[in-house]
């Protein structure tokens, strides 16, 4: 049983401003941060602000002397910073000034290149294939849950299923999709991590 982990070498390269490591770091954590923030905030602008502010503060700490005391705890550290930024955001809701400070480095999202576009198309096709393989009722169930955003219990009652069924339906779709997803977007394990 082997887990990938961020290590001192990775953090050192990140602190040194290695562009490849920074790009990897931002790509790896952006989706996790957005998921976390999306579960608490609705506004796309606020989500983006909190995400960017989290990266800015993490980079600010990393660039200080001493940096991160436990490099292997980089992931939990990012999570903690995000939690703090979210708390501040709740307190300052309605405040007009930006969360970003002027002197913090701001990571730039990668633009879509030809490979990204091909990968996106293949991912779209895979999702379509999985959805078409489902029973029409299961597709409607997913529609009711994720698009109509209706009460889960009510939807389950209407479709004559229980919450376990819904969870398993999502689990199986995810498992089928995951192989294709990893193939297309790359594993994105920490660079230099021992596989």
């Amino acid at each position: 049983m082997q887990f990938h982990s961020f290590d001192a070498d990775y953090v050192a390269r990140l602190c040194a401003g290695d562009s490849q490591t920074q790009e990897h770091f931002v790509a790896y954590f952006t989706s996790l941060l957005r998921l976390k923030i999306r579960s608490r905030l609705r506004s796309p602008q606020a989500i983006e602000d909190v995400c960017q502010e989290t990266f800015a503060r993490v980079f600010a700490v990393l660039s200080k002397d001493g940096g991160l005391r436990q490099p292997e705890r980089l992931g939990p550290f990012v999570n903690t910073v995000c939690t703090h930024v979210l708390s501040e955001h709740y307190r300052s809701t309605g405040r007009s000034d930006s969360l970003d400070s002027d002197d913090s480095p701001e990571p730039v999202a990668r633009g879509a290149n030809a490979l990204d576009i091909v990968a996106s198309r293949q991912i779209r096709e895979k999702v379509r294939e999985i959805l078409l393989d489902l029973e029409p009722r299961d597709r409607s169930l997913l529609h009711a849950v994720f698009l109509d955003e209706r009460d889960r219990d009510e939807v389950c009652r209407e479709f004559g299923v229980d919450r376990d069924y819904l969870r398993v339906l999502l689990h199986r779709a995810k498992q089928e999709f995951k192989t294709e997803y990893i193939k297309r977007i790359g594993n994105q394990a920490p660079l230099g991590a021992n596989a």
Partner: protein
Amino acid sequence: MGPMDHSQAVEQMAAERYLLDELTPEAREAFEEHVFDCHECAMDIRAAAAFVDEAKAQLPTLTQAVLSPPSNPAKPRVKRDRWFMGLRPGFAVPAFATLLLVLGYQNFVTFPALRTEANQPRLLPSTQLHGATRGGPGVTITADRKHGVALPVDVSPQPGIAPSMSYSFDLFDSQEKLVWTGVIAAPAADEGGDQRITLAVPGKMLRSGSYTVAVSGVGPQGERTPIERYVFAVRFAD
């Protein structure tokens, strides 16, 4: 509450619960703390979220036919009238009395029985299965509807094959329809180096007929490797 550990995340299907917004705030934070520290769970939740995001874009066209409103506009009105009929006094009194009877039965008979069942040790008849892919014969299990059956399954890794981080169990009925699925983290090996998992199937879930249990190993990236299929038939004694 501290961070969730990997076994808990897998066993509780935390990624699915997270996306379905089924976790309590404490459990959600515990899972997030784990996800930011576990590459495997991070990939898992990212893949699930990417699937959901893309499915949201495609589902409107794929479900249009099923979800389109009925062509006869009078139908919903009839349905509403029937619903309001139930609120008229002539219907409400007997309906309310029946409801009270049902509630009383559930509170004094059903729920205590369920609580007892959930909080006490249970004895289950256990039957060793033989793998279908190893040429073993299908086993006929005599079960009773009250207790169900326990099926010990050996998931010890074969020589030369890497052990899996977790195992997935799929239960199919005689029509090859999936009736249940579950994932469990790899158990600790016993003194002899064997790893065993017991699948307990409640009697209420079983019908007379044949069943298949498909066991797969789940790797770090979520890839599944079929390990064994077990075929058995159920016959009820009562």
